[in-house]
């Protein structure tokens, strides 16, 4: 990797700054408390799908492991348990083993926020208001090249089952039966050897569905993921799907939100399974934040958490196709 500096991106960087400013304003107006988090943490939440950066704190003959935080979740949820209420973080997050691409860097900026007392679909309106607010705030400084046609008055909405049926020809019955889903995937030419439902799901979503989302002038909201993809979301009453959604603009996933699981037992089971998966995949064996697990025992309030890729959002607002067009300093 090397350092690249350029002033050619100044017009886009101005949008970057204005989007950042607009987010802080919107959050303040809507009573979210800004939380500053440590970048280095002595312990993390176990997550099997993301690798971390590890370093050492050294003093004389003592050494202690520290990790760059891959997400602010660990800190914000501890505070939610303590009763902080609606809160947000806008800042850096770090993920190892994720090379640079047009839409992602291992060091990136994330907006994460939690609203207490609402579910995922109720938060969808707030996200739309945020997007509209940002668009309004940057409209004055946009150059002709940066104008985009995307409107934020409404969502184009599909449940995951509807989207799989419409864009990939996979019926609801096939989607929710692992056996039928694998059979259908094999017929379509996907390699189903030594793979999982989650992997095939992601492959079909990325190949056949995502390119069709958020391309009709409005952002697309994809909601109700199969329970295998629940992550830390509450399950719906149908016991097939989870209260999780993601949104897309121009075929790119920009963010997502879910009604947070607050059943302590289920969370504990999930952590144990994630620890096992990390070991099996020979990932960095980091310390687990026991205080976080302890805090959850007291009970996370009913809330919905959202995560938005800040750079991706700026890409949409500045109408550019890659992250390296946004910044004055790029490491690539």
């Amino acid at each position, binding site marked *: 990797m090397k350092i690249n500096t350029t002033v050619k991106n100044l017009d886009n960087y101005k949008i970057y700054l204005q989007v950042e400013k607009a987010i802080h304003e919107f959050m303040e107006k809507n009573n979210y408390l800004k939380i500053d988090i440590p970048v280095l943490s002595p312990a993390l939440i176990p997550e099997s799908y*993301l690798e971390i950066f590890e370093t050492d704190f050294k003093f004389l003959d003592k050494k202690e492991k520290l990790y760059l935080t891959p997400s602010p979740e660990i800190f914000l949820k501890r505070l939610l348990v303590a009763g902080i209420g609606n809160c947000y973080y806008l800042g850096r997050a770090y993920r190892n*083993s994720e090379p640079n691409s*047009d*839409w992602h860097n291992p060091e990136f900026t994330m907006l994460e926020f939690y609203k207490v007392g609402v579910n995922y679909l109720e938060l969808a309106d707030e996200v739309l208001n945020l997007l509209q607010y940002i668009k309004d705030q940057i409209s004055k400084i946009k150059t002709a090249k940066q104008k985009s046609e995307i409107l934020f008055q409404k969502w184009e909405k599909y449940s995951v089952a509807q989207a799989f049926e419409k864009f990939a020809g996979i019926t609801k019955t096939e989607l929710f039966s692992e056996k039928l889903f694998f059979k259908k995937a094999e017929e379509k030419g996907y390699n189903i050897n030594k*793979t999982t439902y*989650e*992997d095939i799901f992601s492959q079909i979503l990325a190949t056949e569905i995502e390119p069709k989302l958020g391309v009709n002038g409005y952002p697309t909201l994809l909601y109700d993921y199969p329970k295998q993809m629940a992550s830390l979301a509450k399950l719906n009453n149908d016991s097939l799907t989870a209260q999780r959604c993601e949104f897309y603009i121009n075929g790119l996933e920009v963010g997502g939100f879910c009604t947070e699981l607050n059943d302590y037992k289920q969370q504990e089971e999930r952590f144990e399974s994630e620890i096992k998966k990390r070991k099996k995949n020979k990932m960095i064996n980091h310390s687990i934040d026991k205080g976080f697990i302890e805090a959850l025992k007291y009970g996370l309030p009913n809330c919905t958490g959202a995560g938005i890729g800040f750079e991706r959002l700026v890409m949409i607002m500045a109408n550019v196709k890659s992250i390296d067009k946004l910044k004055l300093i790029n490491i690539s």
Partner: protein
Amino acid sequence: MRISAGNLKKGDFVNFQDGICQVQKADFYSPGKGSALMKSRLKNLITAKNVEYAYKSNEQVEVLDVVSVEMQYIYKDNENLYFMDERTFEQTSLPISVVGDISRFFKEGEKMFVYMFDDKPLTIRPPMSVRLKITQADDAAKGDTVSGAKKPVTVETGATVMVPIFVKVGETISINPETGEYTGRV
């Protein structure tokens, strides 16, 4: 050679859905929840069509040892195009149906690159541009000064190309053989 799909890069050749494809684009993509993917654009060498496919980044993919060999295009008949390897003087042929429309722009005696796999020719590596002389063209109608107006001309291989009205017989033009579009005067 088998590699992890995460290491695929532009220019690699892979077998995909019973056809040999060249990777046009391969970008790492982590959906955040679940395995990381390698979002790829694959161009089928025979049909020239692009398909999008997301590999699992840890999936093993066979990268094929396809080579491109410089050969001279010598002639064609109703069905085939014939090429000669100038080092070995060996001749090889490719069906016109496989090479496709771009063969309209091939001039006898020109050098081309032929994709070979297991010593068998697959198809032609499409040249970025070809230079051909205009053999037939009508003069533009007087008073036709609309900017961007075009007229059809015939080039020395017999193919028809749309060009700006100021281009005349005897001039050499460059053409993108894949799109059949005029790209400039030479």
